[in-house]
């Protein structure tokens, strides 16, 4: 199964509640997949700054002094804000590539969950309520976000196998379904020099979108071509710096419900995930069509 939730706020007054609303939605979806959970939150970007959300299984040791060591490597200020096994590194935007390369060099045990100016991804093995509490997601504000709770089918239950997957700067993907051609596609993408770290099928889909966009496609075009190149079942929700999108495979057996009001656009694997949203009784509620790319932007 797997459960997906997404929330795109139109009403700025709701932004301080984004984390708590998404957390509530995701916890409702716990019984669709209790293996691992993750949330991507798009907060306010700080002009000229870029962020890496990183994770380590030995966080205390790996994060100790990491900001200072990175700062001296890149010759620019770096701050580190730790949340449990994750930390957000903040540094000048023009040093983004350098910082990531330096991180790999000096802290090989630290894994990058997300990179970009506004995105932060937090994900771990465990129930949505526990994962959300570890990272205090409820207190986070933002303009939009995506959450996922996983029932693993195609690869191991690990932090790296949890969703969302970061596809490019400020972009992420979550998936309900399973892909059947991910092994051949992984080989092809590796030959193209795309970085893939696990045996997970969704990571291949994320890498595919990254590759398509590297080749010049827009996210919308990359999603359109995924309908041709990806074989299997999928409902995808993707996040970008200023919006989110939804696409389902042509068979569309993986569930999806959307709701829209003047205040927000919301996605849930089931209607249950949406019932606590403000004004849901008056919302336009519908099921997204198969093989159709939907997109909302600020």
């Amino acid at each position, binding site marked *: 199964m797997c459960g997906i939730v997404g929330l795109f706020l139109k009403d700025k007054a709701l932004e301080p509640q984004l984390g708590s609303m998404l957390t509530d939605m995701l916890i409702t979806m716990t019984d669709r997949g209790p293996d691992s959970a993750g949330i991507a939150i798009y907060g306010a970007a700080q002009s000229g700054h870029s962020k890496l959300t990183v994770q380590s299984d030995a966080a205390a040791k790996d994060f100790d002094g990491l900001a200072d060591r990175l700062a001296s490597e890149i010759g620019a200020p770096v701050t580190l804000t730790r949340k449990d096994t994750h930390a957000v590194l903040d540094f000048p935007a023009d040093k983004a590539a350098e910082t990531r390369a330096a991180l790999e060099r000096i802290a090989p045990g630290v894994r990058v969950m997300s990179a970009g100016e506004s995105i932060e991804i937090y994900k771990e093995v465990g129930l949505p309520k526990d994962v959300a509490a570890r990272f205090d997601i409820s207190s986070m504000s933002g303009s939009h976000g995506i959450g996922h709770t996983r029932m693993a089918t195609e690869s191991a239950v690990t932090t790296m196998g949890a969703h969302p997957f970061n596809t490019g700067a400020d972009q992420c993907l979550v998936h309900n379904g399973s892909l059947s051609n991910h092994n051949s596609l992984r080989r092809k993408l590796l030959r193209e020099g795309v970085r893939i770290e696990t045996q997970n099928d969704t990571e291949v889909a994320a890498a595919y979108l990254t590759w398509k966009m590297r080749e010049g496609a827009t996210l919308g075009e990359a999603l359109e071509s995924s309908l041709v190149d990806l074989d299997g079942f999928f409902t995808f929700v993707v996040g970008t710096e200023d919006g989110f999108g939804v696409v389902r495979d*042509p*068979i*569309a*057996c993986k*569930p999806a*419900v959307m709701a829209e009001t003047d205040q927000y656009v919301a996605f849930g694997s*089931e*209607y*249950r*995930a*949406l*019932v606590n949203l403000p004004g849901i009784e008056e919302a336009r*509620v*519908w*099921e997204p*069509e*198969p093989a159709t790319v939907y997109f909302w932007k600020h």
Partner: protein
Amino acid sequence: MQTFDLAAEGLRSLNATLQAQAAETNQTSWDVVNPRGSHAIAVGLDAPIEVHVKGSTGYYCAGMNKQATVHVHGSAGPGVAENMMSGTVIVEGDASQYAGATGNGGTLIIKGNASSRCGISMKGIDIIVHGNIGHMSAFMAQSGNLVVCGNAGDALGDSLYEARLFVRGSVKSLGADCIEKEMRPEHLEILADLLERGGCDARPEEFKRYGSARQLYNFKPDNAY
């Protein structure tokens, strides 16, 4: 009239209570409040009672229904009225995938749209949809009637047996072995009755009838063992 608060009393209690109603019960009308998209609301009923669900439901609402009338005052999740035997299920809003799947009898009325696989493997149920239906609807449908006042999606009636399909609007594509058929007076009569039962504002003459061409492997006696 009885009122049942699903959020307060729970699903097992609701279904146990409704399933315990006998044919000669005096408690014939029930309101279920706070459904909040819960799964399996009002399933396995077997008494001539009327259940009003005041909101939207999740998976498998009114499954295996016999005799009862279940009225959803909202939208229904996947598998509404699955395997219905008799009775009536009414959905005021939309219905998700495989509405009325494998139904043996009774009437399912959807006032909004139904999504993919509506009436898949239907075996005698009558399904009346005021809006549109999605792809692969009436796949392997064996008997009963599917009425669509709007449009039908891809692959309507694929591998159909003897079910009758009536569509007023467009059909995106027909499935394997499904063809348009002549609308004879007896079909207009059947359809007029269905439209009246479904409360549809439509005339039988506006519809086209689709059915099986009976050309697939399973229709050839030479293939019988």
